[in-house]
C-alpha cells in the first residue's frame, strides 16, 4: 500500500479559506516530466460519455422515474414580505389525486439557512419563498391543488434594492437589521492614508454590476424513495456528499441511510452546490404517502428560488505614481444577499491581483426581499475584476501609460495577502502571448480615436483565482482479469469532462486503452469521497487521487509478478498490461495470468490526493484581450474576438479545456452585455422569469476565441500538476470587454450589463 498520513491542508473553496485535516497520499512520487510526451493526458480525447449525450440515452435526474411515483409541486409566496397567519388546505386535500400536503402547519419544523429561517417559515421574505408543498398523482393535479390552498398573509413593507435597504427607516428583514452579520467585512494592509498621500494621481469611481441567475438548462429536481429507513435520492447536484449530509441533518437520520446519486447533470454553475428545500420536501412527502416522489422546478421557480450572483455597488479608489506604481487601493462596496445568508463580497481581486502595499476594503452584504444568492461561477471575482480592471484601465489612461505596461509594472511576484510565494505563476507569459495574438502593440490605439460609426477597440484584463484543489479526495480502481478497469470516485461530472480526464489519467499510468476503462461517479452509496464540483476543485483534487490509485495498482501487479516469477520486484518493469524482467523482456507475465495465479478476480486500490505544500499559495492566472466593435448609432456592441492566455498548470484534455474556456468567456460576455435579473421595486417581483426576458447569449453572440495555454504541469501542486479552469475562464472577460468598449468610443461605462441604452446615454452625456 502507498504511504498515507493525516495532514493539514489549506485551500480556498469558492471565496472561503478552508483548512482541512484529512488523509493524504504521502507517496512523494515524481511529477510527470514536462518534457516527456504523455501518451493520453493532455490529448484531445473525445469524451467517454459522448455517445450517451448525442444519442439521447444519457438519463438526467429530470428523466428519472420510479414505479408508482407521485409528483410534488411547491406553493410559493406571492408577496415579497409577509407574515402567514393561516394556511387552509382543506379544499386542496379534497381534490381527487392529491396525496399529501406539508406546510408550516403540517409537517416537521426543519431549520434552514443556517437557522435563520425554517423549511416553511411563518414569515416569508421574498416573492418565491416556500409556503407549502403538495404531492399528487400527477404534476398537473399538484399544480391545481396549489391554487386551492388558501393562505392568509399579513403583508409587510419590503425592499428589493440593497442601497435602499441600507438607508435608515428601510423595511427590516430581521430584527438585527439588514446588514448580514450586523457589520461590514473589513480588510486592511499597510497604511492606506499614506498610500494615497504618496500618489500623484487618484482615481475614484463607482462601478455597479447586476444580479445574474445561473439558469442551467436542466432545472433543479429530485426523485426520492424510502425503502424502510433507507432514503434513495436522485438529485441534479454538483455535490452528492454535501446533499447527503445536509439531508441527514435536516431529517435527523444517519448519513449511512442516505444514498445520493447524480449521473448526468444539465448544468449548474454553482446553483446546484447546496441541498435544495425541494429535496427535503419531497423526502418528507414520500415518507408520508409511502411512495416515491419526484419534484421538478419550472423555469419560473428557477429564476426566483435557487440562487443568483449578488449585485454590487463598488466604490474604488486607486492611488498611482506618475511612473505607474500603485500606492493605494481601496474598495467600499455593498451587494444584496437576497433574503437569506449569502456573501456578496467581491474584493478578492483587488486584494490579490496586483502588487500594492496599502489596501483597504469594506464590504456590506445586505438582506433584501429577493431570492438568496448562491455561488455563481467565480463568485465575487467576476464582479470584482470588472471594477478593478476597469479602474486600472482608467488609472493607466490618467498617467498616459499603455494599459498592458501598467499591469506589468504592478506585477505581484508574491501573494499580496499572505506574502507567500506562488507554487507557479506564468502571468507575465500570459500577458506577452495574449498581447501578441491580439496584435496589441501594433493595433492598440488611444481611446476614442477610431473613426466612423462602427468604432473598434481593444481592451484587456487580468485574472486570479485559486483552484489548486485539496485533500481529501479519493478514487478507487478495480482491475479485472481481462485488463479492463473501473474508476470510481465520489466526484461529479457537471459537464466539464470529469469522466474523461479521470479515464485519461488511469490510462496514462496503466497503459490501458480508454475504451477498456469505465468511470463511475456521483453515488454516495458506492463511491469514495471526493469534494463538491465547485471552486475549480475537481480536476486538481481528483486526478492525483486517480494517479495514486493507478500507481498502487501498477505496484500491486509488479508485486504479484515478483511472487509468481520468484524474482525481486526491483528487477521488474510494467508496460502495456505486462510485467517483465527489465534485463530480459522475454520473461514476462500479463494481467490475466497475474490475477489468476493470485486467485483474484478483481484487484482493488484506493488512491488519495496529496497534501498541499506549506508556505506556498496556489493560484491560477490569466489575461484576456477583447476586440469589440461599437455602433455609435445604435449602441450595439459586437465582440469580435477574445484571446484568452492562461496559466492553468497542466492541460489534461486539450478539447474539453478549450471548451471550458469558450463557455466561460461567452458567459462572461453575456454578463458584460446582456443578462440581468430585473425586479419591480413596487411589487417586489422578479420580472425576468423566463428565457426570453432573461437574456442569454445564442451562438450568434459568440466571438472568435483563441485559447493560449502558457503553463506546464505544476509539480508543487501534485504529481499531475493541474489547476482548475472552470472559473478562471469567466473572470476577466467582462472587464476586458468594458475596456475595449472604452477604447473604441472613448467613454467609460461603469455599469453592467453594458446595454445599448447605457452606451447611447454615455455617448450623449
Amino acid at each position: 500500500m502507498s504511504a498515507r498520513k493525516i495532514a493539514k491542508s489549506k485551500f480556498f473553496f469558492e471565496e472561503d479559506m478552508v483548512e482541512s485535516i484529512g488523509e493524504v497520499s504521502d507517496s512523494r512520487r515524481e511529477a510527470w516530466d514536462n518534457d516527456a510526451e504523455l501518451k493520453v493526458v493532455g490529448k484531445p480525447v473525445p469524451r467517454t460519455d459522448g455517445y450517451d449525450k448525442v444519442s439521447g440515452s444519457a438519463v438526467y435526474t429530470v428523466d428519472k422515474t420510479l414505479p408508482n411515483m407521485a409528483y410534488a409541486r411547491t406553493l410559493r409566496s406571492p408577496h415579497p414580505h409577509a407574515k402567514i397567519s393561516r394556511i387552509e388546505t382543506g379544499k386542496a386535500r379534497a381534490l381527487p389525486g392529491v396525496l399529501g400536503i406539508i406546510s408550516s402547519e403540517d409537517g416537521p419544523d426543519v431549520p434552514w439557512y443556517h437557522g435563520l429561517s425554517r423549511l416553511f417559515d411563518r414569515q416569508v421574505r421574498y416573492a418565491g419563498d416556500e409556503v407549502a408543498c403538495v404531492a399528487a398523482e400527477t404534476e398537473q393535479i399538484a399544480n391545481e391543488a396549489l391554487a386551492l390552498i388558501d393562505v392568509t398573509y399579513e403583508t409587510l413593507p419590503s425592499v428589493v434594492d440593497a442601497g435602499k435597504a441600507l438607508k435608515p427607516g428601510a423595511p427590516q428583514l430581521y430584527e438585527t437589521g439588514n446588514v448580514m452579520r450586523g457589520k461590514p467585512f473589513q480588510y486592511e494592509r499597510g497604511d492606506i492614508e499614506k498610500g494615497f498621500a504618496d500618489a500623484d494621481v487618484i482615481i475614484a469611481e463607482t462601478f455597479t454590476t447586476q444580479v445574474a441567475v445561473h439558469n442551467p438548462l436542466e432545472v433543479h429536481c429530485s426523485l426520492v424513495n424510502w425503502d424502510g429507513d433507507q432514503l434513495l435520492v436522485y438529485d441534479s447536484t454538483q455535490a452528492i456528499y454535501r446533499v447527503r449530509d445536509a439531508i441527514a441533518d435536516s431529517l435527523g437520520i444517519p448519513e449511512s441511510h442516505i444514498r445520493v446519486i447524480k449521473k448526468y447533470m444539465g448544468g449548474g454553475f454553482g446553483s446546484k452546490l447546496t441541498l435544495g428545500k425541494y429535496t427535503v420536501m419531497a423526502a418528507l412527502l414520500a415518507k408520508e404517502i409511502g411512495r416515491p416522489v419526484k419534484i421538478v422546478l419550472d423555469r419560473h421557480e428557477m429564476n426566483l428560488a435557487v440562487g443568483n450572483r449578488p449585485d454590487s455597488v463598488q466604490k474604488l479608489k486607486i492611488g498611482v505614481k506618475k511612473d505607474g506604481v500603485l500606492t493605494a487601493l481601496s474598495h467600499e462596496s455593498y451587494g444584496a444577499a437576497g433574503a437569506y445568508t449569502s456573501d456578496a463580497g467581491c474584493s478578492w481581486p483587488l486584494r490579490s491581483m496586483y502588487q500594492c502595499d496599502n489596501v483597504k476594503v469594506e464590504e456590506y452584504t445586505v438582506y433584501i426581499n429577493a431570492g438568496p444568492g448562491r455561488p455563481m461561477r467565480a463568485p465575487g471575482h467576476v464582479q470584482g475584476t470588472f471594477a478593478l480592471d476597469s479602474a486600472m484601465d482608467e488609472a493607466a489612461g490618467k498617467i498616459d501609460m499603455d494599459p498592458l505596461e501598467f499591469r506589468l509594472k504592478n506585477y505581484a511576484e508574491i501573494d499580496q495577502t499572505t506574502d507567500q510565494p506562488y507554487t507557479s505563476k506564468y502571468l507575465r507569459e500570459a500577458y506577452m502571448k495574449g498581447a501578441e495574438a491580439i496584435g496589441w502593440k501594433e493595433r492598440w490605439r488611444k481611446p476614442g480615436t477610431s473613426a466612423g460609426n462602427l468604432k473598434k477597440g481593444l481592451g484587456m484584463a487580468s485574472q486570479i483565482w485559486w483552484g489548486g484543489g485539496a485533500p481529501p479526495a479519493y478514487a478507487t480502481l478495480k482491475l479485472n482479469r481481462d485488463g479492463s478497469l473501473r474508476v470510481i470516485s465520489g466526484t461529479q461530472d457537471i459537464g466539464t469532462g470529469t469522466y474523461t480526464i479521470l479515464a485519461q489519467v488511469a490510462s496514462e499510468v496503466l497503459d490501458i486503452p480508454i475504451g477498456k476503462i469505465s468511470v463511475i461517479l456521483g453515488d454516495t452509496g458506492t463511491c469514495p469521497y471526493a469534494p463538491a464540483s465547485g471552486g475549480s476543485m475537481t480536476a486538481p483534487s481528483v486526478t492525483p487521487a486517480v494517479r495514486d490509485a493507478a500507481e498502487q495498482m501498477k505496484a500491486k501487479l509488479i508485486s504479484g509478478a515478483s511472487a509468481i516469477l520468484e524474482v525481486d520486484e526491483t528487477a521488474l518493469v510494467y508496460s502495456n498490461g505486462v510485467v517483465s524482467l527489465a534485463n530480459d523482456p522475454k520473461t514476462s507475465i500479463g494481467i490475466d495470468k497475474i490475477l489468476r495465479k493470485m486467485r483474484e478476480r478483481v484487484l482493488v486500490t484506493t488512491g488519495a490526493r496529496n497534501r498541499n505544500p506549506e508556505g506556498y499559495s496556489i493560484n491560477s492566472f490569466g489575461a484576456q484581450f477583447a476586440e469589440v466593435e461599437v455602433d455609435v448609432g445604435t449602441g450595439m456592441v459586437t465582440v469580435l474576438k477574445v484571446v484568452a492566455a492562461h496559466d492553468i498548470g497542466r492541460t489534461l484534455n486539450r478539447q474539453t479545456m478549450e471548451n471550458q474556456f469558450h463557455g466561460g468567456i461567452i458567459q462572461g460576455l453575456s454578463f458584460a452585455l446582456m443578462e440581468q435579473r430585473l425586479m419591480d421595486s413596487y411589487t417586489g417581483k422578479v420580472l425576468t422569469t423566463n428565457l426570453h426576458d432573461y437574456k442569454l447569449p445564442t451562438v450568434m453572440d459568440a466571438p472568435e476565441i483563441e485559447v493560449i495555454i502558457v503553463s506546464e504541469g505544476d509539480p508543487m501542486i501534485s504529481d499531475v500538476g493541474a489547476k482548475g479552469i472552470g472559473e478562471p475562464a469567466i473572470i476577466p472577460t467582462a472587464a476586458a470587454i468594458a475596456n475595449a468598449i472604452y477604447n473604441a468610443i472613448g467613454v467609460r461605462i461603469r455599469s453592467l450589463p453594458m446595454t445599448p441604452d447605457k452606451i447611447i446615454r454615455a455617448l450623449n452625456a
Partner: protein
Amino acid sequence: MAKKSNKGVSRRKFIQGIGTGVIGSAVLPAALSSREQEDGSGTPRHQGQQLVSLNVNGHPVRKLIPPEMTLAEFIRETLSLTGTKIACNSGQCGACTVILDGRAVYSCHMLALDAHGKSVQTIEGMLDGEELHPVQEAFVEKDGYQCGFCTPGQVLTAQSLLNRNPNPTAEQVKAGMSGNLCRCSAYPKIVDSVLAAADKILK
C-alpha cells in the same frame, strides 16, 4: 413535466371563469370537480381524452391523450423517449427540438394533437440500431457540448439545417442554430460540429 400554471389561472380555468363572469377561489373547486371524475381507484381521469395518431421514429403510434398535452410531454411521458428535453417549457430555448415532417420544431410549444397524422423524429430516431448518425458522430468528435442537456435539440436542429442546406458556411450554421440555447456556451464547438457533420455527409 412542469406546467407553468402553478401560481396563476391557467388558460383553461380562465375560459371557464369567463363563462360565469367571475374568476375567484370560490368558483375554482366547483369548476375543477366538474372536470374531474373518480374512476373508483381514487385516481382522477380527465374527461375528453382524444385520439392522436402519428408516426414516431418510423413507427405508427396511436394513443388517447388529454387534449392539453404538449408534444414534448407526449414524447417524454407517454412514449418515455426522454432524449427530448424540456428546459424552458415555453418555446424559448430549443432543448425540446424534434423534427416534424422534416422541419425542426419546438415540441414544448405545440400540442401533441397538432402532430396528428404527421411524422415526428426524435433524437432516438437518429440512430441506426446502435450506430450514431454522422451528425451525432461529429458532435462527439468535435466536442460540441458540455453538460449535454441541450445536445439532442442541437443535433436535430443541425440535421434539419443540413437537410435544407447540405453545405453551409459558418455564418449560415450560426444563423440556423441560433434557436437553440446552450447555457454552457459550447457554441464554438457546436459550430465546428455542424460543419464537420456537413463534411461527413457530403463525403
